């Protein structure tokens, strides 16, 4: 089961479809389930056209009235949980952003082969000059460290040189996003929660004894929002700093309050 949340993605969908079609995986074993958020562009017609031409099993659902897909993906937990009602006995469930535009053909096969509770490739983005940056620097975390510029045990990590970048084997980390495969039993047992649903899903899964893995040697590419003039996906801090969301939300995404400041809670 491939779970997709999609709103105003017309720009990236053609490349996304191309990448998905090139996957070396039996098409008949895949079922695409779309949660479509009302869009001002051609998102819906592109999805429908793609499925008319392809042989995949698919279902498209329009978001409920009370729960709207947000561009920032920070508060989409209920929609993620809705996929449980649409689940049909598949062995694995893949959550993938529909603005992933490039993947090695073996991506899905490799994710299945490693046979982990939750597992993800490393998502990057490329700018027009060809420079590569780690994409999901917010949800990808290791021992409470975000995959952004940090100094840790004498080493410097930054978004272009993320944690475990050079590992050739699966690495266990805290949380993953963008594109990740979940075993069916984990998917059914663990709930998504707001804010930042994927982060909370991984944290909850770990608290239940499941493990989260990433494959640094498997690189996929997300569309580069800075190149397409789209609004950036602001982190939770952005909303809290502007008083749009209460500060308590920060606790849910790994922060603790020290004095007047919220700081990320690292662990060993």
């Amino acid at each position, binding site marked *: 089961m491939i779970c997709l949340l999609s709103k105003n993605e017309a720009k990236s969908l053609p490349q996304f479809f191309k990448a998905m079609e090139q996957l070396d995986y039996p098409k008949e074993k895949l079922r695409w389930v779309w949660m479509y958020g009302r869009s*001002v562009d051609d998102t*819906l017609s592109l*999805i429908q056209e793609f499925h008319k031409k392809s042989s995949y099993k*698919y*279902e498209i*659902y329009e978001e*409920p009235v009370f729960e709207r897909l947000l561009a920032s993906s920070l508060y989409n937990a209920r929609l993620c949980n809705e996929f449980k009602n649409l689940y049909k006995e598949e062995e694995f469930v893949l959550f993938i952003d529909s603005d992933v535009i490039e993947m090695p053909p073996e991506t899905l096969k490799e994710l299945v082969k490693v046979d982990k509770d939750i597992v993800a490739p490393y998502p990057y983005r490329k700018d027009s000059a060809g420079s590569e940056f780690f994409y999901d620097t917010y949800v990808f975390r290791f021992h409470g460290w975000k995959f952004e510029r940090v100094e840790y045990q004498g080493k410097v990590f930054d978004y272009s040189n993320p944690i475990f970048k050079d590992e050739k084997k699966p690495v266990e980390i805290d949380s993953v996003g963008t594109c990740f495969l979940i075993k069916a039993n984990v998917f059914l047992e663990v709930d998504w929660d707001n804010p930042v649903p994927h982060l909370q899903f991984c944290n909850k899964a770990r608290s239940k004894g499941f493990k989260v893995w990433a494959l640094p040697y498997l690189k996929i590419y997300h569309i580069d929002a800075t190149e397409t003039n789209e609004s950036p996906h602001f982190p939770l801090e952005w909303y809290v700093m502007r008083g749009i969301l209460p500060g308590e939300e920060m606790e849910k995404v790994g922060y603790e309050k020290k004095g007047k400041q919220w700081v990320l809670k690292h662990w060993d």
Partner: protein
Amino acid sequence: MSKEQKVETRITNQPISELKREIADSVKGEKNWKNMKILWHSVAPFVNSGYGNVTRHMTVGLSNRGIPIFCSAYWGIQPPGLLNWKGLYVLPVRKTSDDPIGLKSAAEHYKRFKCDLGIFHADFWASQNFPKLIPNSMCYSPIDMENYPEKWLRILRAYKWVAVPSLHAQAELKKFGVNSTFLPHGVDIKDYYPSNQEQSRKAFTLEKDKFIIGIVAGNNDEETRKGWDANFLAIKYFLEANPDAKSDVQVFIHTDPTNEKGRNLTELANQIGVSKYIIWNDTYTTSVLALPDAAMNKLYNCFDVFLLLSRREGFCLPALEAQACGVPCILTEFSAMIERNDYGKCGWLIKPSTKIYSPLNAVTAISDPFKGADALGEAYNNEAKRKMFAKRSLAYARRQTWDIAIDKHFMPLLKEIAEEIPKLTTRTEPKKIAGN
């Protein structure tokens, strides 16, 4: 083009079982999309204009189908005091120099009358503040040009819903990423139908044996959106090419030829040299009293062919009314006029000689008077073709009634909108829209 109106008591075609369930639901206080209260902001429903005509038929039509609706009118009624017009509340607005069409009053009406949806029906570019002031806003406006600048499109983007009366408009907006619903206007075929031409002409003291070219159009702008210059030039070139027709042709024009807001049409006709072929309808009738539907029906029935080489049209109600009377039309091949003539299947479409940028910096057409003259020549000389077009026009118009517009297009749209308004909706789960 008239102000005669019938407002019936609420009559519905719903099956009794469904009606009973709805009544039971509303007694229980449960959600029902038909409880949606609408504020319609436009001209008053009794105003004799395109917007008045649409307002009249749409508001009355919805009211008769059980939807509570209020008219907020920026034209046709002065404050203070509201008017109960045959069961419809018509609310005046307070106009100021920075709010010339009373949008602030409309927002106040929306709030005080506890409306759920505000519909703006006029030129969308004048409605910048409407979607800002009214939480659930829908724009129902003609989009009659092409390649609008972003400045205007941004106004439409602010609305939650956009409806347009032509497929041309829908396609044009889609190019710029604005989703809209096709919501056509219509014609009342009980009012507009073919009747005896000789008797009709008698009522307007027109000669029974003449070939009559009819024009019904406003004269409200200096730009001459209705293409008065092209209309007159086409007539001139037609008569030059067909000298025998000079003694046989009359042009009957229903407009206010000396409206100060528009062009001086009597002068223009003189300049072009066609004034001696023109019969102007009585100015007092056209500009002050207006004609009721029954008289307009007789008027259209006088015509052999309807001519309107407009630069653009959002829908072109007079063409549809003429068609409903079995009169074929000669229209410009641009904007909604293409659809009015069913893509050339039931009338003549005149290719524009050029396209220009209008004062709004969007593209409009200039009709080609030479091709217009050719079409008039064909209408005059080829009776078989004219009659074929007349027959097709009539059949085409009968498929475009107000009832069809409301039942097939407006009611499903309102139901869809209500589903999106939390107060009225019952849908809290995802809805399957496609799959295999």
